[in-house]
């Protein structure tokens, strides 16, 4: 059972500390490999929680309201989510520039009138030229495909890091816009999800 040799070897000079260390070594040596793996995961959870609390890009353990994934806590208030009615109000007032985060082929088929296309997936190609088209003093309303499309939120995060402060993300993106029947620019060939629409 307990290693008496270790106790007798080290117990005389430092009975408490060395005895405890020997006991810990003896116990840990008998932990099965799978349990050790589980302990490493537990250590990862503890380290992740501690680091996340201090990390400026730390995220909440659960998705932010609206099921938004990967939004740093520090960004949540600076990247508000708006619904379709709010977006329409901004559109009609001309107060916001709409930014279509979808791929170029989708933008070419159909988009919000006046929106500019800034495909998030092609950020490196578009960013150098498009900066001059993205005013910093005007609200930018970002939208992508629909529910759980992270492109517009991701674009918002990156624009925040680039110093843009007037940003909003349209919740449910393009899907909610067309479902409400709001104005669109349609490619002559139409958009597959809007059969008969105009």
């Amino acid at each position: 059972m307990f290693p008496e040799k270790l106790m007798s070897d080290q117990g005389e000079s430092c009975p408490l500390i060395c005895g405890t260390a020997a006991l810990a070594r003896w116990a840990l040596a008998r932990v099965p490999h799978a349990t050790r793996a589980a302990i490493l995961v537990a250590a990862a959870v503890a380290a992740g929680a501690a680091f996340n609390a201090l990390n400026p890009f730390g995220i909440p353990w659960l998705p932010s309201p609206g099921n938004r994934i990967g939004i740093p806590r520090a960004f949540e208030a600076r990247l508000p989510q708006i619904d379709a009615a709010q977006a329409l109000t901004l559109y009609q007032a001309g107060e916001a520039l709409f930014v279509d985060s979808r791929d170029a082929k989708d933008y070419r088929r159909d988009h919000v009138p006046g929106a500019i296309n800034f495909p998030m997936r092609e950020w490196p190609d578009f960013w150098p030229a498009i900066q001059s088209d993205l005013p910093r003093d005007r609200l930018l309303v970002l939208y992508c495909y629909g529910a759980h499309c992270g492109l517009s939120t991701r674009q918002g995060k990156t624009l925040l890091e680039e110093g843009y402060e007037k940003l909003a993300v349209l919740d449910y993106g393009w899907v909610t816009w067309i479902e409400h029947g709001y104005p669109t620019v349609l490619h002559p060939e139409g958009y597959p999800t809007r059969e008969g629409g105009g």
Partner: protein
Amino acid sequence: MRALWRLVTHPVFVRLTGLVVGGVFVWASLDKVTRPDRFADIVHDYDMLPLVFINAFALVMPWTEMTTGAALIVGVWRRGAGLLAAALTVAFLIAIAQAEIRGLEIQCGCFDVSGMTHSQASWDLFLRDIPLLLGAALVWRRG
């Protein structure tokens, strides 16, 4: 063949393999632990987890890579760490394979999550992870 097996299972070779696998895991974790938000985006793209778990996964998984890699490098609980490294690598292989089969054009998230140019999840990456799995399994069984 027997000589090759003796070489592969030699304690020095197993120790070196543990160092390499551990180094890869620590290296792979560095960018992810600092940018859990971007890693969460990539996990989201893989479309394998319920939304409610993605942030928590993005916080824990990179640190699991870190602790596993550190244990392999330092030589503490090598076999347990090898088991965990093998399990993680199997999970990576499944994630990459399902992305390829479903035709998802997504960023790998293997090492770099902060930059704007990334390697994509692909069969090449799948094949690249096979030696990692073999190395981790070797440390687990012979470490």
